[in-house]
């Protein structure tokens, strides 16, 4: 089956993406860079989960993906708000 060759390639690409985002997170240099990198890491993780779901033939990882999408957004909003205002719940 074609998928059997495609999925490892996809895993590799997404893993590399994960590493690149992580590298940016470590490197910075500025706080927005790191937040952006963290946000991207969240999205990369969604990609990994979707691939895993296809790979294992299990739909059970869907909610995790959904939640990552939600929580990643909230995290980014909170971190940005902190940079802008300091006080995030004012």
């Amino acid at each position, binding site marked *: 089956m074609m998928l059997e060759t495609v999925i490892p390639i996809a895993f590799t690409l997404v*893993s590399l993406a994960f590493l690149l985002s992580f590298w940016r997170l470590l490197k*910075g240099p500025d706080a927005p860079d790191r937040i952006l990198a963290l946000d991207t890491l969240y999205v990369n993780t969604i990609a990994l989960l979707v691939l*895993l779901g296809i790979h294992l033939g299990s739909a059970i990882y869907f909610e995790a993906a959904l939640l990552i999408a939600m929580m990643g957004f909230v995290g980014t909003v909170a*971190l940005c708000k902190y*940079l802008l205002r300091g*006080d995030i*719940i*004012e």
Partner: protein
Amino acid sequence: MTLFFAVLTPFIGAALVALASRLGRSHSAWAAGAVTLAAIAWLVPSLHLPFEGTTLIQQHDWMPALGLNLAFRLDGLALLFAALILGIGLLIVLYARYYLSERDSMGRFYSYLMLFMGSMLGIVLSENLIQLLIFWELTSLSSFLLISYWQHREEGRQGARMALAVTGAGGFALLGGFLLLGHIVGSYELSVVLASGDLIREHPLYVPTLTLILLGVFTKSAQFPFHFWLPHAMAAPTPVSAYLHSATMVKAGVFLLARLFPALSGTPEWFWLVSGAGLATLLLGAYVALFKHDLKGLLAYSTISHLGLITLLFGLSTPLAAVAGVFHIINHATFKASLFMAAGIIDHEAGTRDMRRLNGLWRFMPYTATLAMVAAAAMAGVPLLNGFLSKEMFFAETMEISAGHAGGWLLPALVTLAGALGVAYSLRFIHDVFFNGRPVDLPRTPHEPPRWMKVPVEILVVLCLVVGIAPTLTVAPLLAVAAADTLQAPLPDYHLALWHGVNPALVMSLIALGGGALIYLMRRPLFAWHERSLGRLDARVVFNALQNGLFALARSITRLIDTGSLQRQVFFLLAAALVLGVAPWLAGGTPLAGNREGLPLDAVSLIAASALIIATLATVWLHRQRFVALVTIGVVGLVVSLAFVKFSAPDLALTQLSVEIVTIVLLLLALYFLPQHAAPEHEPARLWRDGMIALLAGGGTAALAWAVLTRPYDTIAGYFLANSVPGGGGSNVVNVILVDFRGYDTLGEITVLALAGLGIVAMLQGLQLAAPSRDDAGRSWDADAYPAIMATLTRILLPLALLVAVFILLRGHNQPGGGFIAGLITSVALIVQYLANGAVWTHQRMASDSHPLVAWGLAIAAFTGLASWLFGYPFLTSTFSHLNWPVVGEFELASAMAFDLGVFLVVVGATLMILVNLGGLHRAPPKKGSVH
């Protein structure tokens, strides 16, 4: 029960006496007298028994399994002591009524006195050794109260603490001794112990037992080297001294020597320890007494000396010596009590006890002087007085013992010297106070005391005389039964008589009398020599130094360990865990790795794990740049969730993800009020130490995980998988465990969450923190508090998030999800509204108080549990059924879902409670000085 009531009466009396003092000063004295008489009355019906050779034993169960019962004993020895305690006690009650001044609290005094009397009586009437010890310690405690009666005086407080420390220490040693004794004999009952002398003496534990008991005896009876507390106890009011140091407190020690004489005496250890201490005390006391200028000081050292004499007698171990010992106990009690009372009268009338100022009182108070002189003569061992008789027996015994030994002259010589010193200080007491010219600078003009103050002295002095003149008619029967029951054996042959013919003892007495006079005449050069040498020794200084040393040592050790540093505490805990965790492996024999086959490693896992490890290290490395550390720890949390997904734990992943975000929001809230950066640490040693601990702890947990993961195991998990659907009605086994199999854990868990919320609310009350107006780089904050684009779009997300939350909540029983995750999603959705639109805006649209959510959530969870009672099942028993509705079709209803709803509400309530309250912190106006 009579003996028990006799002992109990003074204790109850103590309360009555205190109450009586409210009626008036004299009332408490009357009450105290009545209590003493009542105690006597309990004993009267049994008094004849010892004289008939019967020992009365009364026993009541208390802790029978431990051999500790309320057991009382009335035999000759006990009778003698009870008579001294109650008889002299009665006289003291009378005397004190006149001695105490208007300012002194009568009720308190008599109350303490009754406590003390009861304790003393308890000692002498005890049949059980542990019970005896209880009363023994009670005498220490009650004497503490009596000695410190004048609490405003420094000497009183110090003397009391010193007495308590020394006699209390002795008490602890005695406890050990008694326990050993009971261990050897198999019982704490005196009857058994006294009958087991040979068993005890031959037991390998004899020496430790004896040593511990003697420590108790010597401290209580002020034997060298523990004698020093007694003179300082003279700070007590004189009636107390008269009571404690004649008939009671200090006599408890020699009582015990007499009591245990049959069980312990007759060995070389006993002989050397007891007579050695006795002899040293006898000499030392007599010597020091001579040089005391304080009237009571003289009497105190004289008491020490006489107690040494009695101890020495018991140490000699012969039956006759024991008889003499018992006899001297009686005699010393009578003359010493009267002397103390006389001293009290003098102090009371003249306003001082300093013999350098007290001179020629004969002219002012001839009657009292006569009484005092007779008593002092008895103390000196002058013929026709009781002191002479027992001292004579004492001298005779020392001669008897020493006969035939090489160097045998030494003991008689030394005791004669002591006798001479005794004569000398008695002479000094008489001559210095009542004659020797005119008084020097007295505060007031002395005269005879009130009539009733003299009566107790008169009675005692008369006793000295009649016993001294006609011993056989007076004291003989009492002495006989007391001595016989001391020995627990037939009495030796002895005669109480004034005249035994010319024998060595008489010669020694005469030498002592003459020598004493000679010493007194030579007193001036002796005084001068003493002042230059031994007179400078002050036990109090030494004791204080020791005590201060103890406190200083305790302080420095405590400070060394407890520095108030959290880091040290954490360090200790981790170090302890490391030591304990590693210790079992040191024995060897257990391989670290097992033989279970593992999963193959894949590239994605390796990459994710590397990211996690690097992010962890980055968090550690960058922790001083706090915002950055927050972002890196976010990566850690993300990868941990990924691991949960990877290893088949979707519920965990969902939970971890939600918790992660809420935690980051919390940390951001906190970071706002905390410094953004921390200064680098300047202690490389500490960093290395912490690094080592961290490496060891990390290595330890890794090894532990590795050890477990490489081993196979059997688990109860199969049961959950098998019963989840049929028994719990849900196919998500994790959720069924949470809400059903282990719903009780979950009930606890949401309580923790509720508590966190409530605790935080409580903590934040009144807390005010100044909001920084600039960020750490000095920039002022962005002016746009609620960016419009964010505000608009996050509002769209709210219904969507709620929909997802409902979905997650409802499906939790069968698919990944459940109340906790749903609760967090809801909270996060609401928190975003706070983030995007502000607290005020949000509070206009929803209730700001989330207490009801928490309360009702907990209530729903708890009542779901309680509901099962109605059906006759244990708490938290779940039920479920499948319903089939038209259109909707078949669906499941489970009580566990109601429980999950409770979880949901608590989570939403607690999370909002925490975040919203924290978010509202800055709105309070900054308090002055709350933050630098």
